[in-house]
């Protein structure tokens, strides 16, 4: 664990530098080999060659999207774990991804919506609905919110939305073809406008998450302590939930439901910098971006020349972690 504050700053800077290295790798690696020189040329002397088009239209958007989505999912996971005191909380386990994707699939297949602007709002709405239902279901009963109740409620809602999504798709085979790759979670073949239209929300989410780090530190000591220290816990929770909706909903709108990042990364961040959320959140963001970039590069090589959806890659990487965390146990 990194103790002193200046080494934490150095760690963060190294992380950001690594993101740049990974993004560079993401641009030059793949089926079409690309040299660094070509990348510069495509900016300054664009000549319309295949390589230049690939760089501009595919590789660069892809690298940027992977970074932004990875960071957002990881931060959303960190916030959820902090707010619920549940080490397994994450957008995928609690059904937020599934809820957002359900509404997007309904929009595409029933109403033929293709405009990015509308789909984005559908994703936000889906995330909002899920968060509310899971929270209400998880807090029912005399003993209030317990980790196991919340996890089960989340899993039940995730199962609900994914079976509804499948139901919608059985009715519309054409839509199935269209959304299947998106549904597996992928950052490939997305246009840059998709990212630019949600980026303001991402940015707001990241910054606000860092700001509420202090409140989350207090909250993670338990409700009673937090209330005793004069915190309005409900307000913090609602604010946190809004951030989760922005980050996870936005991520789904851009890349489809990508699992396991939100659950694994905050644990690695905690292992690196301890229990202070003011550090956990930025570290989660950086590490999340790195993981998704890495997974996306890996996804190109496993079954070359076709590609594995990056959501499958993160599932492969994340499962052992998940099992480890679950086995170590959480407080009932």
């Amino acid at each position, binding site marked *: 664990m990194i103790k002193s504050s200046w080494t934490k700053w150095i760690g963060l800077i190294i992380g950001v530098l690594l993101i740049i290295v990974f993004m560079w790798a993401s641009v030059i690696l793949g089926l079409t080999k690309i040299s660094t020189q070509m990348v510069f040329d495509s900016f300054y002397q664009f000549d319309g060659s295949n390589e230049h088009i690939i760089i501009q239209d595919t590789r660069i958007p892809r690298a940027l999207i992977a970074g932004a989505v990875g960071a957002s999912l990881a931060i959303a996971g960190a916030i959820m774990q902090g707010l619920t005191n549940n080490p397994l909380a994450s957008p995928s386990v609690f059904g937020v991804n599934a809820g957002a994707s359900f509404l997007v699939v309904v929009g595409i297949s029933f109403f033929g919506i293709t405009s990015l602007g509308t789909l984005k709002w559908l994703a936000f709405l889906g995330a909002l609905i899920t968060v509310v239902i899971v929270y209400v279901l998880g807090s029912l009963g005399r003993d209030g919110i317990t980790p196991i109740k919340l996890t089960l409620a989340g899993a*039940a809602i995730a199962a609900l939305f994914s*079976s509804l999504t499948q139901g919608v798709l059985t009715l519309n*085979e054409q839509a199935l073809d269209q959304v299947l790759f998106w549904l597996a979670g992928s950052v490939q073949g997305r246009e840059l406008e998709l990212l630019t239209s949600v980026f303001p929300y991402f940015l707001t989410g990241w910054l606000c998450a860092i700001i509420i780090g202090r409140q989350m530190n207090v909250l993670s000591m338990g409700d009673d302590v937090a209330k005793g220290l004069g915190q309005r816990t409900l307000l913090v929770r609602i604010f946190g939930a809004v951030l989760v909706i922005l980050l996870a909903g936005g991520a789904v709108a851009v890349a489809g439901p990508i699992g396991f990042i939100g659950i694994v990364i905050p644990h690695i961040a905690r292992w690196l910098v301890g229990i202070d959320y003011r550090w956990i959140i930025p570290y989660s963001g950086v590490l999340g971006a790195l993981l998704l970039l890495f997974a996306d590069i890996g996804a190109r090589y496993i079954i070359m020349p076709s590609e594995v959806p990056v959501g499958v890659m993160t599932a492969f990487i994340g499962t052992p972690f998940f*099992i480890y965390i679950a086995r170590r146990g959480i407080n009932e």
Partner: protein
Amino acid sequence: MSKYIPVRLGKISFLLEKRSLVLFVSLFVLMAILIVISLGLGQMKISPLNVVRSILGIGTEMEQLVVLSFRMPRILMAAIAGIGLALSGAILQGIIRNPLASPDIIGITGGAAFTTVGFLAWFSDRSNTLTVSISWLPLASLSGAIIMGLLVYFLAWNKQGITPIRLVLIGVGLSATVQALTTMTMLLGPIFTASRANIWITGSVNGTNWSEVVTVIPWMMVSILILFIFTRRLNIQELGEELATNAGGLVQKDRFVLLLLSTALAGGAVAFAGGIGFVGLMAPHMARKLVGSAFGVLLPVSGLIGGIIVLLADLIARTAFAPLEVPAGVLTSAIGAPYFIYLLYQSGKK
């Protein structure tokens, strides 16, 4: 007059509450009526009386053909699948001691889905025809369910045995993993396989034939019989770890057997009917509201309710949108899930 009738059969003994008995019988009758109605509805309408005649073998030849050869297998399969899923859910809710547990959530259905989709994708040639007989498909689904059940069990196991919470967490995690694998397999295969697989995942009893029904019945009967013997152990499980141990239960061993039973029941159901969602979650919950939580009555009542739910879903799925055929699973999720959330909300407010 006592409210209970004691039943003793050698080592097995239980109390039968009269009210529950009445309920059980009425649900059974309801299910039978539903089967008869369902047999009569469809493209060719047959009156309930003629349906009964056909079953007894004294109807017209045409009606007998439609009722016995075309509709009967799928309707029986719907009922059997519903019973299997509901029982499986009831067992899991007993072991995990939480009304939100079900075979879909801890990944048993997901495991079956993966092997099914894998089977469809890997044994298809370029022209989308299967290279092996389709009758192997249920075996693929069943083995997926059982492997998944065992995997969840062993990963949740440590020196002290398994705890309910670890079972849930590992199940939730693994089901997300197999879901990713399933989607990947669907993606890599041709779109024809994908849409077929998607219908399986959603759950449908369309196109069931008699030989499938004959295969699944013994499997279910044996599982239900063993479950009947283990009912008392399930009651003990619900007391929780310490009390159950004090009550003299072999907690860990029972848990394993019960989990295996639950997997076998769900696996048998999804093998033929696909991943019909939310029955395993909903039916036991409704049963609990009706008869309370003693498993002696809870199990049969949830089984019947599960059967009724899937029968109804299938009936609506194949008649309401005719000539379009909707998978029954779409309806169980679309109608069942909001209702279930409402139920939970109601019961939680108390």
